[in-house]
């Protein structure tokens, strides 16, 4: 229609910014309903055991307690109360067994949250303790089996081969064989083998998980801080044996999501209790309880590379072990979909990957910003740098020599397209002044610098749909189930709609996700929304324009002129009235990965690639590390909103700094000991006292809306290994486990000088 780039590419402030800073933004956290009861969850205190008897009498008789509900009560309403996107392994409340310390066993309901909490202390449980296993490597061969039988949920076609498996803690195993010449390792000039580990961590959204269920007559409305309203509706309907239209799911702004609020978290629990008690039910978790609900996989990654004399990587063998905790959640997809990138963005003719999602008696692990990629990059970029050091090659030159670029095949067999790895690396090198050496110092403070590059394949296949409505006066309503979790999606989608319609972004109103109104979307996750929902919104707007043009012709308006929508509608309906509805649906093509070889020639609609470089100093007397400068270079295609894009990069990088330096879930025989900000340390403003520069390279994805693609996770990829590589550059010690604490660095320096 009109201007090409006036709305797309505009750094407009977020449309909800004023509400958020003035305390008027809508969050589920504040929401109340008349007659509502508060639920407080009673949790298991043993890591693995048979549930013999739950003594609820004292809690039930505590003054002000309305009810105490257990797993058996839920079974009366829902005969098979198990959920999970990959495996139907998670009961709404524990049945027969408990599998980790913190597992929900019962729930106390009261009009007062304080009464519910006090009464919770009075519940006692008789357990028969079973042997527990906590480490992912131990769990491979342990006699302690977390689940007696694996039950794939069927929403995941690739898991059917696991039905009925017993006596194993391996929830999923993914195998990739590409080339796979068995003799390469024995014949190669150089072979390097290393093992890397990462810790279990948590997203700690400042708004902890919260859900409210309001029962109606054969209907239920769920208000939930969820990133996936469409999925929640589907899954709740399945559990209840109801039609999808009997379940209504409403979301609001989220006080952070980062993957913590995907799939089912509290929604099944509040639904079941609300229907049993016929009262609205609210469950709001404390920060501590979030740690018992979902987390980031701890991992062990054994990586081996074979190289020829010139430094070309001939083969890479990757064995990745993901500590999935007691329930699978979306862990199997992490092991599989991130698993196939485990060899890194390198052009290697022989790749072998074995990626295992493993059950242990820890709190469950699932999706966390990066979706397993940061753990993989930590290993392969540390490993790649170590090889470069051994071969006396410049880290960037070595990577360039082996880099996977457009036109080459990735290990799945898919040809890389629209992935500007070369440009990203080149840009980083220039910005870091890489070819100019730095002063490393001779005193107790030593300086160093390091870089790392990582990539991710967008999850596939997924569907997004959108409805764009034009009112009698020409104003618009955008209905979509993408949730603005703080990433700026409302603004970005409004901009895309506005660009297509040729109107200012300010006149597009974005409707709060509500499954009675907003159409199906797979979910707000994995950096998929800009690309998938962006395309759906663009298609919906184009559909609306097409309908307007037809309407204009039928109304007898001059075809060669452009008419404002309000004029067309006025002419058609005789007054300011009527509605034009445009619908858009987007699902990219996809070929599933082969069960034996892990291969697919169309494994993803878009790749994300990003590199990070850091300059830092190490205090050799105490091991303290201080970053001076960080540069993040990202390929995000054309940018919808450059300002928001940059905050997404810095936000991701800062979050990853937390996982790099200080965040770690600490356990004592399966009991989490640091589930609060007093002892689980996330970065504060003083920890980010360095210069950060974020650059989006010039690139465009021809399938993305106006050339755009995902960006939310890119800033997480390279941070951790860039830091480890810089520490090596500064003091010659190699840290192979996260987090990188001052004590670890100091100890490594000591070992080097005495060893």
């Amino acid at each position: 229609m009109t201007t090409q780039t006036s709305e797309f590419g505009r750094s407009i402030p977020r449309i909800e910014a004023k509400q958020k800073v003035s305390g008027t933004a809508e969050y589920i956290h504040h929401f109340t309903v008349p007659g509502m009861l508060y639920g407080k969850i009673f949790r298991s205190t043993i890591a693995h055991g048979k549930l013999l008897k739950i003594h609820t009498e004292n809690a039930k008789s505590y003054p002000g307690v309305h009810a105490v509900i257990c797993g058996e009560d839920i079974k009366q309403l829902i005969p098979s109360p198990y959920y999970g996107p990959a495996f139907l392994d998670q009961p709404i409340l524990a049945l027969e067994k408990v599998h980790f310390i913190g597992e929900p066993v019962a729930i106390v309901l009261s009009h007062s949250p304080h009464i519910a909490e006090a009464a919770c202390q009075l519940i006692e449980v008789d357990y028969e303790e079973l042997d527990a296993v906590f480490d992912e490597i131990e769990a491979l061969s342990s006699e302690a089996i977390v689940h007696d039988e694996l039950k794939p949920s069927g929403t995941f076609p690739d898991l059917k081969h696991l039905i009925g498996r017993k006596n194993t803690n391996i929830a999923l195993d993914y195998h990739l064989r590409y080339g796979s010449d068995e003799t390469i390792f024995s014949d190669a000039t150089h072979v390097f083998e290393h093992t890397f580990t990462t810790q279990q961590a948590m997203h700690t959204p400042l708004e902890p998980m919260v859900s409210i269920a309001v029962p109606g007559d054969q209907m239920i409305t769920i208000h939930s801080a969820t990133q996936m309203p469409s999925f929640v509706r589907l899954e709740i309907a399945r559990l209840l044996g109801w039609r999808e239209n009997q379940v209504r799911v409403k979301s609001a702004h989220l006080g952070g999501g980062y993957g913590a609020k995907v799939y089912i978290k509290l929604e099944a629990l509040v639904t079941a209790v609300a229907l049993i008690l016929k009262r609205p039910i609210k469950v709001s978790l404390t920060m501590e309880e979030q740690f018992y609900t979902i987390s980031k996989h701890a991992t062990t990654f054994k990586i081996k590379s074979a190289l020829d004399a010139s430094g070309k990587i001939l083969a890479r063998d990757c064995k990745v072990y993901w500590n999935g905790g007691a329930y699978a959640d979306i862990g199997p997809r992490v092991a599989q979909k991130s698993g196939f990138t485990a060899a890194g963005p390198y052009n290697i003719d022989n790749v072998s990957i074995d990626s295992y999602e493993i059950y242990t008696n820890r709190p469950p692990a699932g999706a966390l910003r990066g979706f397993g990629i940061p753990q993989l990059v930590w290993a392969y970029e540390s490993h790649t740098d170590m090889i470069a050091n051994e071969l006396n090659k410049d880290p960037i030159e070595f990577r360039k020599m082996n880099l996977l670029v457009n036109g080459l095949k990735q290990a799945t067999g898919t040809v890389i397209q629209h992935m500007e790895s070369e440009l990203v690396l080149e840009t980083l090198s220039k910005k870091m002044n890489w070819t100019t050496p730095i002063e490393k110092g001779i005193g107790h403070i030593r300086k160093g610098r390091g870089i790392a590059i990582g990539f991710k394949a967008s999850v596939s296949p997924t569907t997004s749909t959108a409805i764009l409505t034009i009112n009698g006066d020409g104003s618009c309503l955008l209905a979509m189930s993408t949730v603005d979790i703080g990433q700026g999606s409302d603004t970005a989608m409004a901009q895309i709609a506005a660009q297509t319609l040729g109107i200012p972004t300010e006149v597009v109103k974005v409707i709060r996700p509500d499954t009675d109104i907003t159409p199906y979307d797979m979910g707000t996750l994995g950096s998929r929304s800009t690309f998938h929902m962006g395309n759906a919104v663009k298609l919906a707007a184009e559909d609306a324009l097409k309908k307007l043009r037809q309407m204009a012709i039928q109304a007898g308006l001059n075809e060669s002129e452009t008419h404002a929508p309000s004029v067309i509608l006025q002419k058609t309906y005789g007054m300011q009235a009527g509605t034009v509805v445009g619908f858009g649906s987007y699902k990219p093509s996809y070929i599933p990965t082969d069960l034996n070889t892990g291969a697919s020639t169309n494994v993803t609609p878009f790749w994300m690639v990003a590199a990070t470089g850091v300059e830092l100093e190490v205090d050799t007397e105490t091991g303290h590390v201080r970053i001076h400068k960080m540069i993040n270079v990202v390929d995000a295609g054309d940018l919808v909103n450059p300002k928001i894009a940059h905050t997404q990069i810095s936000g991701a990088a800062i979050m990853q700094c937390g996982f790099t330096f200080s965040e770690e879930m600490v356990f004592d025989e399966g009991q989490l000991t640091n589930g609060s900000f007093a002892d689980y340390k996330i970065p504060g403003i003083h920890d980010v006292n360095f210069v950060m520069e974020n650059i989006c390279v010039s690139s465009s994805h021809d399938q993305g809306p106006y050339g755009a693609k995902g960006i939310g996770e890119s800033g997480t990829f390279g941070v951790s290994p860039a830091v480890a590589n810089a520490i090596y550059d500064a003091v010659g010690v190699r840290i192979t486990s996260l987090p990188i604490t001052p004590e670890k660095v100091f100890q490594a320096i000591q070992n080097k000088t005495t060893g």
Partner: protein
Amino acid sequence: MILSGEIKVNAPREAVFEKLNDIPFFASCIEGVGNLEKINENCYKATLTTKVAYIQFKFQVEVEITENIFPEKITAKTEGTPIGIVGRLQAISSAKLLQDNDQTTIQYSIDLKLTGKLGSMGQPVLRSKTKELEQQFAKNLQAAFV
């Protein structure tokens, strides 16, 4: 943490051993034990309340005598859940009795583990408290033989 020490009692070994095996008496020597309940021959349940300044720790404990060698040695396993705070208490205690003329020397050693919030907030606080409890226990035990 490991707590160990010696208590001297003016009585023959056999008598002291009997007294230590008298669970209700044993419990009465420790300040803050209440609601003692026998589960079976070797198992007892009780609540333990202990205060440090204005901080109160309350536990639900279960004690099991695992080794009972008359009149030389007693070993017991204790498990406790604190009330109101996340964590667990686990202790393995052993006492060796040595005769020295009319006196009995009890050599004891307690391997105490505190996990969870109890461990991180409670451990340093409880360490000083346990020393106090040890002294109280010794005094009460000796008084029984006067």
